[in-house]
């Protein structure tokens, strides 16, 4: 089984699992009392954030490995992870406001998760723009790797900035459905979704990696 086929299989599995998540979240998970149906967006929103963060972390790791070993496979992987990360960031950035509007009354809020994902989105886009702007593969791989590492290192600083910002400017009291305080059914759905999104990440990156051989004009 070629890598491409394997990637497709994993993605297919991920999509089937996603369907399972949808079914479970919609019909077999209780509705949250104060937020109503919109709370169920959380089951997609948080795992999407996780996949985005995972994608960035692996871009950074692959970048470091590329600079150390100059194996172009690491470069290909980084490019794949950045593109997949962008897709997950889009999911997160669309579901976030759709959740925020009914629950918090505002489409956008600079909370930790949304802000970090927005930054990751910018970083992924910038990374791919840079790749697209450099024709020579060796230079492109090196420059992209440098940018990838910088991006990964920036993440804790964003997190810290948001944290400090929020302690100075307390946001309106918001329901924080953090995992430990979720009742059993909801927690199970959430964990199932995290697993699904991880599988999707693996499948999509594998596919993208397998088809990334002729990267010259795609970037």
């Amino acid at each position, binding site marked *: 089984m070629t890598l491409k086929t394997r990637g497709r299989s994993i993605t297919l599995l991920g999509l089937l699992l996603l369907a399972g998540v949808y079914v479970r979240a919609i019909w077999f998970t209780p509705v949250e009392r104060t937020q109503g149906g919109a709370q169920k967006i959380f089951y997609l929103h948080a795992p999407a954030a996780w996949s985005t963060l995972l994608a960035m972390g692996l871009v950074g790791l692959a970048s470091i490995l590329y600079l150390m070993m100059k194996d172009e496979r690491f470069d290909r992987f980084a490019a794949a992870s950045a593109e997949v990360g962008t897709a997950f960031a889009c999911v997160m950035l669309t579901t976030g406001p759709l959740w925020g509007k009914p629950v918090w009354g505002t489409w956008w809020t600079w909370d930790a998760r949304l802000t970090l994902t927005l*930054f990751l989105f910018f970083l992924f886009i*910038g990374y791919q723009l*840079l790749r697209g702007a450099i024709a020579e593969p060796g230079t492109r791989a090196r*420059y992209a*790797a440098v940018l990838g590492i*910088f991006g990964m290192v*920036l993440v804790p*600083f*964003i997190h810290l900035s948001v944290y*400090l910002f929020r302690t100075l400017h307390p946001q309106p009291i918001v329901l924080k459905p953090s995992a430990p305080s979720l009742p059993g059914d909801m927690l199970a759905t959430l964990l199932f979704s995290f697993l699904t999104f991880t599988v999707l990440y693996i499948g999509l990156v594998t596919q993208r990696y397998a088809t990334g051989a002729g990267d010259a004009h795609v970037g």
Partner: protein
Amino acid sequence: MSGLLRDALVIARKDLALELRTKTGLGSALVFTALVLTVFNFGRDPTAVAALDLAPSILWVTFTFAAVLSLNRAFQLELENQAFEGLLVSPIDRRSLYLGKLFANLVFVGLVEAVGLPLFALFFNIPILHVLLPLAALIAVATVGFVAVGTLMSALVIRVRFAELMLPVLLLPFLIPPLVGAVQVTARLLAGRPLSEVSGWLRLLLAYDVVFVSLAALLFPATVDE
């Protein structure tokens, strides 16, 4: 170690000599800064918000744009004169090259800020003399962060089309953490609050500087070597 610094200073001096001889770069940057401040003045409603409330934001957004603009020229000179290849062939340690560029950029941006700050105080009637020293120190710390990352990013876009646009696109996400910190600390300083209130932000700024200067110096060779 001293060889590293010595080489860096030689490179910095050469860069600055080139820059200041024509005066076009510095002059443009200064005028740009003054214009941005002017735009900010007309971009607000003076009856709605007091200048003092907006002051930290105005100052730092202006400095950020001025820094990005100044950084654009960081490697342009080399590119134009094809002096870059000559530099690479020479036996200078790559880290010296980076540090030299960093110093030169710091001086350049520092000059722009040295003029921009009094202009800002003048235009918006903000008293700064009573906190001048801590404010200057803060500006120095934040600027080191801006310029450290910016110098490296400008090396990445040196041969790229639309470099003037690519540089801000790549750089701005990295400037936001130090920018936020700088604005918060400036606000406290101007309001006469004790600095202990913003110790978290100061620590963030310092950590940012240490981490990113080191990272940039470490990775800079990858941008110029084959």
